[in-house]
């Protein structure tokens, strides 16, 4: 119960309460409005309600131009240029790739924090955590897919951003340092993506990361290699300690380094402005340094609006992709004792895997990439020709396109299609029932797995008519065995299906072929593939 004396403190000095003072002096409406206006001006560091309305309605602003003040005084706007040259703000020349890279980094932080809530960096808990995330956490799969897709997109977008900067010669004086920090940002992005790759602790993660991490050991001389290897992995091989260290690199060290570099990168853009398309300025002249009044496009609010539209559009596209087209992979639990056939590095490191097939691990895996990193970072300090026009830079542009082609070829060479020798019987088993993927057998619907014994020689007469998918797989099996006849003489493939339990059928694959090195004259490969009615395998 409020009494009269409690409502108004007896000795209230309205001088201490500007709002009350204003209301007393100017009346409720006007006093309140002025206070709100002042609060907004303070929050936006310089723009009051009238200024904001004028900005949004694209009307002429008071002089001096009030939107310049937030760039001088406020944090979020001081890291952006006040205005841009109208020739540099279209889709060409930037393709908005730099902004997109920053946006993806922010998206990765937001989705990453969500994932951190449900994750423990332990070799015992990590994989069960993944299953829990996917089975028990609303939006768990959605956020994980978004994080994974965003990470891979970020590697691609940052690479394209770098390629674009190179092609338009934007790294040239005075932007050499911007390029150097940008290239290091690219390296850190790769590091982030790569360390994150390990965290699900499935077979895919363990073996893909093992390929790359094995290069640590190759750093010369051996004493350094061993030290670096143990420093990063916490043990000679990836295990509990390695997972924890990769996690800390992923969520702490690399993001911190990236933020620091990003700050420098952005600051340099504020200082030097966006470079114009090369054909729009005289050779050797940096027009962005002094933009004529009629060529200015202000960050507030025009450029900001365009950037926000772009972000909303990209978000919609990414959400649609992860909902309908993309699922982050999750293979069975990591097992250091069993190497799956055809293990590959993440796609953005396949070119290194290709290099490794060409030569020595130390040379191709450590020395060459280190030279490349150094050459890329310091490139603008050697390529000092002032002319940014495409026609004046034929050697550099040719070199860059050759480099891109080489990366594509090396990437192909990194895949199992190039120079990987395995035994043909293992290849057949891999096609039929790989240890970490679905393969042909598991994709057969449960009803079609009719118990019985079939072989590649008599399947046409023994497979029941109501099991078309089984028939199709037996056909494929027969085809694989037929193709391997040269290496596996007189090979015959068997498939025996039996009912192991209610709802569980066991498919035993057995491949037998003539092998004179065996005393019996025959060799075989046998594998049991149990299939449960509810397993829900989808064709790949």
């Amino acid at each position: 119960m409020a009494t009269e004396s409690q409502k108004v403190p007896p000795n209230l000095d309205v001088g201490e309460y500007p709002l009350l003072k204003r209301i007393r002096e100017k009346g409720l409406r006007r006093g309140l409005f002025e206070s709100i206006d002042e609060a907004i001006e303070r929050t936006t560091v310089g723009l009051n309600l009238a200024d904001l309305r004028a900005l949004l309605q694209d009307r002429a602003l008071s002089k001096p131009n009030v939107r310049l003040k937030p760039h001088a005084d406020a944090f979020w706007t001081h890291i952006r240029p006040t205005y841009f040259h109208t020739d540099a703000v279209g889709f060409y020349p930037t393709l908005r790739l730099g902004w997109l890279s920053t946006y993806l980094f922010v998206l990765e932080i937001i989705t990453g924090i969500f994932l951190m809530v449900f994750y423990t960096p332990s070799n015992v808990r990590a994989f069960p955590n993944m299953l829990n995330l996917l089975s028990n956490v609303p939006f768990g799969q959605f956020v994980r897919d978004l994080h994974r897709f965003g990470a891979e997109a970020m590697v691609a977008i940052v690479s394209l951003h770098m390629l674009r900067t190179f092609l338009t010669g934007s790294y040239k004086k005075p932007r050499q340092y911007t390029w150097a920090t940008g290239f290091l940002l690219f390296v850190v992005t790769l590091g982030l993506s790569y360390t994150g790759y390990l965290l699900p602790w499935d077979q895919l993660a363990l073996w893909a990361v093992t390929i790359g991490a094995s290069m640590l050991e190759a750093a010369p001389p051996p004493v350094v290699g061993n030290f670096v290897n143990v420093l990063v992995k916490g043990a000679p091989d990836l295990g509990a300690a390695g997972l924890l260290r990769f996690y800390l690199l992923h969520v702490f060290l690399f993001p911190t380094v990236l933020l620091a570099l990003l700050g420098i990168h952005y600051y340099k853009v504020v200082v030097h402005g966006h470079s114009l398309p090369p054909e729009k300025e005289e050779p050797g002249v940096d027009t962005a340094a002094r933009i004529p009044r009629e060529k200015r496009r202000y960050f507030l609010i025009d450029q900001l609006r365009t950037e926000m539209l772009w972000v909303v559009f990209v978000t919609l596209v990414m959400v649609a992709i992860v909902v309908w087209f993309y699922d982050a992979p999750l293979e069975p639990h990591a097992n250091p004792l069993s190497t799956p056939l055809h293990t590959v590095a993440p796609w953005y490191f396949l070119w290194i895997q290709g290099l490794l097939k060409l030569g020595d691990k130390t040379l191709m895996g450590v020395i060459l990439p280190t030279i490349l990193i150094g050459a890329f970072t310091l490139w603008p300090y050697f390529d000092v020709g002032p002319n940014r026009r495409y026609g004046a830079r034929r050697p550099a542009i040719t070199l860059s396109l050759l480099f891109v082609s080489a990366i594509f070829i090396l990437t192909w060479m990194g895949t199992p299609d190039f120079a990987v020798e395995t035994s043909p019987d293992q290849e057949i088993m891999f096609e039929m029932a790989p240890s970490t993927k679905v393969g042909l057998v598991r994709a057969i619907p449960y009803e079609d797995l009719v118990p019985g014994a079939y072989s590649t020689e008599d399947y046409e007469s023994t497979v029941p008519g109501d099991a078309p998918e089984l028939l199709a797989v037996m056909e494929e099996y027969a085809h694989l065995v037929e193709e391997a006849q040269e290496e596996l003489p007189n090979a015959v493939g068997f498939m025996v299906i039996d009912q192991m339990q209610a709802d569980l059928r066991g498919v035993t694959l057995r491949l037998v072929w003539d092998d004179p090195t065996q005393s019996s004259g025959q060799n075989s490969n046998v594998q049991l593939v149990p299939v449960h009615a509810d397993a829900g395998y989808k064709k790949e």
Partner: protein
Amino acid sequence: MAEENQMPTRSSAWHNFWTKILPAEVQLILATVFTLGIIITVAWVGINEPARMQEFTASYDARSIENGAVIFDDACSGCHGPQGQGIQGVAPALNTPELFNGERLAEMGWSGSLEDFVELTVAAGRPSVTEWPAAMPTWSQEYGGPLRPDEVKDVTNFVLNWEETALAGEVLEAAEAPPPVEEPEDRFCGFDIDVELPEGDVERGRVLYEGELGCAGCHVAGANVVAPPLEGMGARAGERVPGLSPEKYIHESIVKAEAYVVEGYEPIMGTLDFGDKLTCQEIADLVAYNLSQ
């Protein structure tokens, strides 16, 4: 706005696409439409989440049973029978009503759930002396065995999945025997320890020992309940049986363990018949690994 963004260059549709910026009103309308699109899509995901989570749970439970079946086939069927029907004088049946109707639990004086009973038995083994001559080895890495906790869970799920058929008393009909592809007799090395072994590989031997053969399940480091530990094997092997070289002694212990049983242990190794299961190369690898310890 529009005038401000006009580029004073040649005009073509392509050029416009690259350089022109949409008018502010169009940008705002598009941004609103895209935002609504995001909201609707995410809401659609949210509506489908309960069904998706349920489907995922069913699918990973099923795959856990599949994985358990493979492990059972590798590690358990040797004693408990390929259909879990048990083997007389070796290990009890699991695919049997007694396990599921509470009789076995009562017999063991177990007051917890059946799932816990099976899981603990798989994980920790049964070191106590029971009516069965061979003690159940420990399988979980937590107790020095070869399996990860999730694999122990997989085996448990597989064993529990017999419930329906075991309680119904239904005997599952095995499929017809595979067509007569004779497993060549001499593919495996046999029980004669005088055969010449090829060069062994320590690493491959380790994989066999810790992995598919499950040796580490009984030969637990630091424990000597079920079987002698592996440590120091390289040093001990030559001293056990006079006249046998270390290689021959380990070879004999693998294929003909009953010939010399270390004092204080049950003669269970001999029942595993490794001579019928391993090639000479595999035995050589195991010997090499043993000697390296």
